[in-house]
């Protein structure tokens, strides 16, 4: 691979890593909140209504074309509008054409790939186990790390792998807001597109094949690990 393509590879991995990290921090509490639908009290009506709105919002990026998300992001990032203006006054640069802008876009776009598997795992938790831990003196944060995370290991792994892989393949959003800067926003998918547009099919094959191989290997390993877990840990 050419030098610039290596840089693109590094950018891609950096973007996927940063996005996944942001998703772990923001998406985990979101997935938890969504999974805690309360059925007993009257006071939970508001919470459930909010969930009814937020859940489809989270799922939107699965069905929306990335160009739609990219279009709105481009508008939002503009210094003529509030979010872009705030960013500019805080940092002096635009969100568009920057790595941070890509992280914002990818986080939004990969959000459902992180939140949904995790939400499913959380919903399957047996409430009594968490209550038992509470009675043994575990605070909410303690319960989360000592009990919920180990019990939902599978959900976490799936969520992390899916959102990472999805971001690696991210194209539409980066195309709309990236600006194709070699050291900052030219990720692998953009480099590939460039090669094709310039009729440089040789280089395009290398990148496309690489991306395809990576995605396949990731998913293959994911399924394999999952099977191994199913077999060895038949949980009660």
């Amino acid at each position: 691979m050419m030098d610039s393509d290596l840089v693109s590879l590094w950018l891609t991995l950096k973007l996927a890593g940063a996005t996944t990290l942001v998703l772990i921090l923001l998406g985990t509490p979101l997935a938890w909140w969504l999974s805690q639908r309360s059925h007993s009290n009257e006071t939970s009506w508001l919470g459930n209504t909010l969930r009814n709105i937020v859940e489809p919002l989270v799922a939107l990026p699965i069905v929306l074309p990335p160009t739609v998300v990219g279009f709105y992001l481009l508008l939002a990032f503009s210094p003529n509008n509030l979010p872009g203006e705030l960013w500019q006054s805080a940092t002096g640069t635009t969100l568009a054409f920057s790595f941070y802008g890509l992280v914002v876009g990818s986080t939004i776009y990969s959000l459902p790939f992180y939140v949904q598997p995790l939400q499913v795992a959380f919903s399957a938790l047996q409430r009594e186990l968490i209550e038992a831990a509470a009675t043994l003196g575990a605070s909410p944060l303690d319960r989360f790390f000592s009990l919920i995370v180990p019990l939902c290991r599978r959900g976490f792994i799936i969520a992390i792998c899916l959102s990472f892989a999805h971001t690696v393949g991210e194209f539409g959003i980066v195309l709309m807001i990236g600006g194709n800067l070699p050291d900052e926003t030219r990720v692998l998918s953009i480099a590939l597109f460039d090669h094709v547009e310039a009729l440089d099919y040789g280089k395009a094959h290398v990148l496309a094949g690489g991306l395809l191989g990576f995605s396949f290997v990731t998913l293959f390993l994911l399924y394999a690990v999952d099977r191994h877990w199913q077999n060895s840990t038949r949980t009660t």
Partner: protein
Amino acid sequence: MTSSNGWIRRQVLLAGILLSLFVHPSCYADHLRVGVAANFRSTLEKIASSFELEHHTKVEISAASTGALFAQVKNGAPFDILFAADSHRPALLESEGHTRLRRTYAYGQLVFWTPGQPANETALKQYNGTMAIANPRHAPYGKAATDTLELMQVKPSRLVYGTNIAQAFNFVRTGNAPAGLVALSLIRHLDVPAIEVWVVPAESYAPIEQQLVVLKNASSKAELFVAYIFTHVTTQLIEKSGYLAADASHHVGKGTATIARLGADR
């Protein structure tokens, strides 16, 4: 429990309805299928509608990126004429034997645009902020932009590439890039105050030749349409849209200086 008469009538009616769905107005007479690069599309639509009025031949237009059109034609898409945004790919098509005619139909004009600021040669030479241009690797406007920047020794702090000239234009329009080297045709589309725009002199860059090709198996009406492109009325329309019209006598657009100075108005 229907009478056999009524049942047959119903079937005939149904068949008739179905058949009529397949009947296409263009099946009746000769019609032309034309592919056009996105940035020339609106101009071509105006040309096509007056052609239809005059010659009673329908023109069906598909717009896409030049690259996409190119790939489609190579794979047998049934176009009669292709209006590309460059000259490189039409030449390729010709060398591979897909065409029977190739001609330059317009020259793109590059402008320097700074929304909210006055634009002129000095402003461009002194500009050191973020600038948006089309990708020079595969977009002719992009190559023209880099030619210009090099010639005038402009040093923007950041050079941002749009995947095509429309995207570069959009970067500037949304305010994400304070300045850009974009197409005059796009400026004309929007009602941009004249003071924000400076037309880059054509000799600053290699001409942005936009060429058309008539494909090998095209309808006989194709040449008629091509000739129409070079009529006075049409060339005026093309220039009003922000391009420089090409001379009908030039088959392969090589001569730069003379053509570039033709009709370069503001």
